[in-house]
C-alpha cells in the first residue's frame, strides 16, 4: 500500500530534499558574488515550477521578498551605513551613494528570496510523515519529531480556512474588491480566522492525544523510508556540492 498523496507532495526521500535545502542555504549565505546569487535565484525559480509549485504562490513569495528588500533600501538610504541620519550628512541626496545602497539591498533581498524558494520547495517535496520518521530515526523524541510535520500540515490547512472565511464574509456583502476594502476587511476576516485557528489547534491536539500520540517514544510508521540508488547518488552529490561551496 502506498500512502503518497495524490497532490504529488512527497515525491522524493526527505533526506534528499534536506540535502537540497542545505545546499541552497549554503549558497545563499556563503556565496559572495551578488551576480551568482541572482543567477541562483533564477535557477531556483525554474526548479520551483518543475517540482510543481504554483506560479501564484511563487509570485507571492517573491513579492514579499521584494517588499523586504525595499524596506532594507529605505532604512539604509535614510539612516546611512552607521545608523546616523544620512539626510543630516547630506549623503541621502548624493547620487553616488544611492547606487551601492540599491545594489546591496537587492543582493540581500535575493539571498532571502533564495532561502524562501528553497523552503517552499522543501515543503512541496517532503511528505510530513516522512520527515517525522526521519527525525525519530535520528533519535529525536517522537513528540518533538512530529512538530515540524504538524506545522507543515497546518500551513495549507490555514490557507484553506482563510479562503473559507474570506468567501464567507464576501458572500455577506463585505466589499473585497479594492485594496482599501481589503484593509477594512482585516477585522471581520481576521477575527474568525484567529478563532478558527485556535479552535482547530485545540481539537487537533485532543484528537491526537485520544489516538495515542506520545504514548510511545518510538511508534511504528505505515510505510518505511527507503532511498532509491538514484536518490542516494543525488544526495551524495548535493552534500559534496555544499561542502565545496562552504570551503571554496
Amino acid at each position, binding site marked *: 500500500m502506498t500512502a503518497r498523496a495524490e497532490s504529488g507532495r512527497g515525491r522524493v526521500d526527505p533526506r534528499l530534499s534536506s540535502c537540497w535545502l542545505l545546499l541552497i542555504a549554503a549558497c545563499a549565505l556563503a556565496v559572495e558574488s551578488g551576480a551568482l546569487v541572482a543567477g541562483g535565484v533564477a535557477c531556483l525559480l525554474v526548479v520551483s515550477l518543475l517540482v510543481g509549485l504554483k506560479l501564484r504562490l511563487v509570485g507571492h513569495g517573491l513579492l514579499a521578498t521584494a517588499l523586504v528588500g525595499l524596506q532594507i533600501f529605505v532604512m539604509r538610504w535614510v539612516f546611512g551605513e552607521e545608523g546616523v541620519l544620512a539626510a543630516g550628512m547630506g549623503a541621502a541626496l548624493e547620487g553616488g551613494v544611492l547606487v551601492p545602497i540599491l545594489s546591496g539591498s537587492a543582493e540581500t533581498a535575493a539571498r532571502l528570496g533564495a532561502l524562501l524558494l528553497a523552503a517552499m520547495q522543501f515543503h512541496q517535496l517532503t511528505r510530513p510523515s516522512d520527515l517525522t520518521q526521519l527525525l525519530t530515526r535520528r533519535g529525536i523524541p517522537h513528540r518533538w519529531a512530529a512538530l515540524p510535520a504538524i506545522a507543515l500540515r497546518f500551513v495549507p490547512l490555514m490557507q484553506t480556512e482563510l479562503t473559507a472565511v474570506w468567501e464567507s464574509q464576501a458572500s455577506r456583502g463585505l466589499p473585497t474588491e479594492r485594496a482599501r476594502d481589503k484593509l477594512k476587511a482585516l477585522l471581520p476576516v481576521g477575527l474568525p480566522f484567529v478563532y478558527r485557528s485556535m479552535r482547530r489547534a485545540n481539537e487537533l491536539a485532543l*484528537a491526537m492525544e485520544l489516538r495515542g500520540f506520545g504514548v510511545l517514544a518510538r511508534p511504528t510508521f505505515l510505510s518505511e523510508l527507503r532511498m532509491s540508488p538514484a536518490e542516494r547518488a543525488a544526495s551524495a552529490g548535493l552534500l559534496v556540492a555544499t561542502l565545496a561551496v562552504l570551503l571554496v
Partner: protein
Amino acid sequence: MSAVLEVSLETVTYEGSSVPALSGVEFSVGEGEFVVVSGRVGAGKSTLCHCLAGAIPCYYSAEVDGKIRVAGRDLGGAPIGELAGIIGYLAQESQAQIVEGTVAEDVAFGPCNLGLPRGEVRRRVESCLEWVGLSGFETRDPQTLSGGEAQRAVLAGVIALHPRLLILDEPLAELDPSGRRLVAQGLRELSRRGTSVLLATTRPDQVRPFADRTVSLSPGGEYPSANPSGVGGVGKSGAATRLGIGSRSPEGRPEKHVPGEPGVRFDRCTHVYPGGRAGCTDVDLFLEPGGMVALLGVNGSGKTTLGKHVNGLLRATTGSVLVDGIDPAGKARGLLRARTGFVFQNPDYQLFGNSVEEELAFGLRVRGTARDEIKRRVDDAVSRFGLERWRSAHPHRLSRGQRQLLAVAGVLAADPSVLAADEPTSGLDPETALHVLRELGSVAARGGTVLLMTHDAELASTVVDRLAVMEAGFLRSSMLPSRQRVAG
C-alpha cells in the same frame, strides 16, 4: 452485562457562566451496548461527550460536579493519552481531527502510535476504510474530501484503535442517507462484537432501529432553542401557502432594480478545480423567482460546487451562470453580492461579532442599511430565531447548533433576494431544522429564489417546490416533491 461507562453528573458549568450547561445526568452503558443520547439543539450533548472523553476539564475549562467511570476507573484528572485504545472519540467537527496528509496515514495514526506491527496496521487501515465505505481513498489528500467523506475517514481512524467504548458526537450529521445507513449498521455490528457505543445526535430517528436504547437530554438553561411559533403567518401566494409562511412587507423589497431575467440560470455550467478534478459538469438548471429548489445528492456529488456559483464564489470553467441576468463572478458581482445570501455549512467561518446582536447587524451594516432599519431587522431576527436571551452573549459561547441558527439568522436579516444554503440543517433537531427551512422558504415566498443544498430529501420535500438530484457532478433529474405529486 458489566458497565463500561457509568455517568453520574450533578452539574457541568463552563468557566464564566453561572448557568450549568448540563445538569442531573445519570446513566450507564454496558459492554456491547449501543446507546443513543438524544436532545435538541443546546441540550448539552457535546458537553457530555467532552466530559466522557476527558476533554473537559483538560481542554475546555468547566467545573464538573459528579463522577464518570470508564472501564472501572475514575476518569477525573486521568491523562487523556492513557485513554487511547479504551475510549475512541469522534468530535462534531471532523475536518479538525485529521492529522495526516493522506487518508490511509490518518487512519493508521492511532494504531501506529500504539506501536502495532506494520502488517497489523495495514490490515486495520484496509478493513476500517472498507467498513466506512472509503476503499480506494487511501492516497487521497484529506483536504480534498467532502464533509461527509472526511467524517467517515475520521471515524475509520477512531475505529482502527479498537476501543472498548466509542463516543460519537453527531457522526451522521454530514452523511447522505446511504452513508448513514452504512455507518449505523456498522456500529450495530461493532456493538455485537463487544464494543460499547454511545452516539449523541439531534436525530435519534435515524439510528433508533439499530440501537439498544435512547437516553434523552432535556435542554439546560444555558442555550436558546429556535422558536417554531415564530414563523410568520400564512401567506397569500401559492408558494407562501404551501410553505406556511408570510408575504413580504413592502419595506423589505429590494431598493435597487437588477436588470435581466429574474432567477438563477445555469447553462451547461462546468467547474474544474485546479488539478483537473471536475466539481460539476454540464449542469443546465433554472431556478425561478418565488421558488425553492433542493439540490440533493450523496457526499461529494457536486452540490456545494454548483451552489458556490450563485454568488460568484466559484466561476464556471465552461458554460455560464446568470443571477437576475448578471454574471455573479463578473464585474457587477459587488452589486449582486449585496442582494444574494449564502449560508455556509460551517457557521464559524462568518461569526466574528462580540455579541449575537452585533453579528446579526453586520450583513446589514456592510450593505449600508439605515440604523433604524438595522435595529428593526435585528429585533425581528432575534425573535424569529428565539435568541432574545442571548442578544448580548458572545456567539462563540453558543453551541454548534445555535451558531448554525445564528448564521442563518444573520444571512436572512440582510433580506437577500437570491439565497443559497449549504446543509443549513446539519446537526439540528427535526423541529428546529424544519423551522430553519421554513425561514429560508420565506425568501421564496417574498418572490426571491432559494437553492437548498442538502442530503436530507425527506425534510427538504416538506418545504421545497422542486427536487434536483446530482450525482458525480452531473445533474441527473429534477422532480416535484412527493407531496405535490400526490396533490397533482
